[in-house]
């Protein structure tokens, strides 16, 4: 029997009426990598947030090496040997890499009240080299680095002091294959040093491959803890959802011809310094996938097509010759866009679900210039229900919803607008299997109705599974194009990305 390092006893947390975590008791052994999985809103993030002192506990306690933990913030958590790599950006802009790594621990370098910055930089540089991140410079501002590099900086920050417990919350979705490998390497190192990793991810194959044991949460409750060597992805899905998922996850059809009718033509679109001379046509009823590394320019291209980039060059034309050069023009012509940055761009977070759904359609909803709240409510409820958004009521604020539910609100608003050309940037980013399946089913349905979809995605499986056509971008240019084909493999695509 392995030695227990951390024990959670009856840990509970409620937000308002929502019981996010309900009496969860778990033990973690020394030297194991523990996967923590569950749908969106199942309480994974809340659970680890309590462990790291980000949220106070309502009930229950954490016991680390026989002592009850009483920590109030992440710095205290670090001092107790617990660190976390968070889902979103965890580095602070405007600070150097070294300052970020030692954030909260500057006192190590303080002598007689004066911080020895040179010593701190030297130490950071040493750590970065030790980790093999030679391309990152300790004295540079973190702002100079890509999202992925900033995540690597966080890896250093969270692991350099050999924490007893390392929590990795849904980090890998932001990383490329290379970044992931780096992360796995350090997970393994920490494990071998006799410490424990708690690994949260929606990517079940990754969880099975890299974890020793897996705990499953559903609706805030612990369902089971299983050995990863004894389960399959389908077993885990069943545990997470509580019912058998239909076999239909991605589209199953192959060989359907694409319509010849062009609904949107993109001609020589460039954004100085980001993308160069992109041209393609979008056909009626087609799902056109865009793939590539996260900085290949595909996200910018999505924005540019929607008229959201002010220094765009080239033309985006509808079939009737309308040039799309601003967001209002795009929306007026039934184009829709969901951003990778869901909280800031896809939604108005500090607004109600009702207004978020109605906002793009307000002109259509007005009767002689007047908007009646009853009508707005009915409209919003209709489409929220169509997307089965889990909410207290339609006037709930969007920031209170989980990631998957937020995305449903985003889709509900564009369904409400009855958009014909839909640009989906990372539509399933950070979203659990059940909602993912819902979104894929919706996309398939829209396609059959003759709507055209541009899907920009960093998930290769999703591109292969859903697209009629896949365009791969590299360094701001189109590098390859593939037609839908059951024989097409991940490797084929990856080769053209790098």
């Amino acid at each position, binding site marked *: 029997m392995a030695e227990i390092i951390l024990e959670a006893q009856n840990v509970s947390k409620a937000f308002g009426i929502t019981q996010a975590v309900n009496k969860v008791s778990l033990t973690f052994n020394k030297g194991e990598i523990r996967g923590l999985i569950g749908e969106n809103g199942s309480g994974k993030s809340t659970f680890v947030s309590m462990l790291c002192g980000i949220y106070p506990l309502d009930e229950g306690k954490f016991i680390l090496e026989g002592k009850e933990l009483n920590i109030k913030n992440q710095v205290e958590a670090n001092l107790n040997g617990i660190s976390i790599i968070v889902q979103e950006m965890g*580095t602070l802009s405007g600070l150097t890499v070294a300052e970020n790594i030692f954030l909260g621990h500057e006192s190590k370098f303080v002598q007689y009240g004066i911080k020895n910055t040179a010593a701190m930089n030297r130490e950071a540089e040493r750590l970065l080299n030790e980790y093999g991140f030679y391309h990152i410079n300790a004295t540079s501002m973190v702002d100079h680095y890509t999202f992925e590099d900033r995540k690597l900086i966080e890896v250093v920050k969270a692991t350099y002091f050999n924490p007893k417990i390392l929590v990795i919350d849904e980090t890998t979705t932001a990383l490329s294959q290379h970044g992931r490998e780096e992360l796995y390497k350090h997970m393994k190192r920490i494990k071998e040093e006799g410490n424990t990793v708690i690994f949260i991810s929606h990517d079940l194959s990754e969880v099975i491959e890299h974890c020793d044991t897996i705990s499953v949460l559903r609706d805030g409750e612990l369902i089971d803890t299983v050995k990863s060597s004894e389960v399959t992805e389908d077993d885990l899905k069943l545990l997470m959802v509580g019912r058998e998922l239909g076999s239909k996850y991605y589209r199953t059809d192959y060989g359907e011809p694409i319509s010849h009718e062009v609904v949107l033509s993109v001609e020589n679109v460039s954004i100085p310094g980001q993308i160069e001379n992109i041209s393609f046509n979008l056909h009626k009823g087609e799902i056109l996938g865009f793939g590539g590394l996260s900085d290949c320019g595909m996200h910018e291209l999505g924005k540019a097509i929607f008229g959201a980039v002010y220094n765009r060059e080239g033309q985006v034309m509808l079939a009737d010759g309308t040039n799309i050069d601003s967001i209002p023009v795009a929306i007026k012509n039934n184009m829709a866009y969901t951003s990778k940055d869901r909280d800031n761009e896809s939604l108005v977070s500090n607004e109600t679900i009702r207004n978020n759904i109605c906002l793009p359609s307000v002109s259509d909803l007005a009767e002689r210039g007047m908007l009646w709240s009853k009508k707005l409510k009915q409209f919003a409820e209709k489409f929220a229900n169509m997307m089965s958004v889990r909410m207290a009521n339609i006037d709930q604020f969007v920031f209170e919803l989980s990631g998957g539910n937020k995305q449903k609100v985003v889709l509900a608003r564009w369904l409400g607008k009855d958009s014909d050309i839909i640009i989906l940037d990372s539509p399933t980013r950070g979203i659990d299997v059940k909602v993912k399946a819902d979104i894929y089913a919706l996309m398939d349905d829209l396609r059959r109705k003759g709507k055209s979809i541009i899907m920009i995605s960093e998930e290769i499986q999703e591109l292969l599974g859903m697209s009629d056509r896949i365009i791969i971008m590299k360094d701001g240019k189109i590098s390859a194009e593939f037609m839908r084909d059951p024989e097409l493999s991940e490797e084929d695509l990856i080769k053209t990305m790098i």
Partner: protein
Amino acid sequence: MLEPTLQEDIKQKEDKHSFSDFMPKYGINALLPPLGLIAIIVIFSILTNMRIVEANSINLILSQVYVLMIACVGVFMVMTVGGIDFSQGSILGLSSIVVSYLSFYNIPLAILAGIVTGACIGAVNGFFHVKFRIPSFIVTICTMYLFRGLCAYFTTDSPVAAVISITKYNVTWIKVLLTVLVLVAAYIVFNFTKFGITLKAIGAGEKGALFSGVRVELMKFLVFVIAGAITGFAAFLNVIKVGSITATAGSQLETQILIALVLGGFPISGGAKVRFYNIIIGTLIYCILNNGLVMLGYDSYVQQLIKGIIFVIVVALTIDRRTGQVIK
């Protein structure tokens, strides 16, 4: 600007120690402003031996309400989108001068010119705020000084007097009618039109609003123009009350507006939680407080001290820590 996660941490930490822990999440906060209004009436009734609820006191209080309440309407819109307008006092001053000059020729023309003057100043504010991306509080502090300077120039030799006969409009029903007209029009626009819903959306999340098809820059420009125009209209009520305009006419109006709105429960960073009644209740609370303190015979510095303390307490109680950012 902090990164989201850290912001979230800070939010969590702050929430732990905030007053909002002692109140239910919804409900009570919305009731606070009306309760505050009742409380302040009761308190001053007791302190002044009911003098404050006598007819002549009420008349006096009301006479101060009109201009402030109308000016609040425009700033209400500016602050809903997350901006602020410190140039309101100068707008009132300059528009009042224009109204006074033109009152010798034609009253409707004078009113119109007052509105146009206000709108022009608002356009200057909006232009610099939007085109040069300068935070609105900086732009409007600049224009506050700029147009106050113009006021001083026009009143160097002597105050600018309006035509004597203009005071015949200084009757309660006209002032009430004009105030109610402005309020009703703004209420309808704010609650039942696309304009209103998009204002709130901009305040709640500018980027999100932009990606929903809102013409954010145009809207921001327009609210400043409207805020100027509305206060330019209030200048007419100001002129019929005071008759002649001095260099300091309207000064401090901006702070009065700010305090009144906040006392009325206005969330200082704007957004989805603003309510139209904030204007009405806030203005009433402010004017009653103002007059009550005068009636109690406090020196003006003590009055300011008390108002300052109340303002800070109310902001501390009501500010929305979640948005993390205050005024753009």
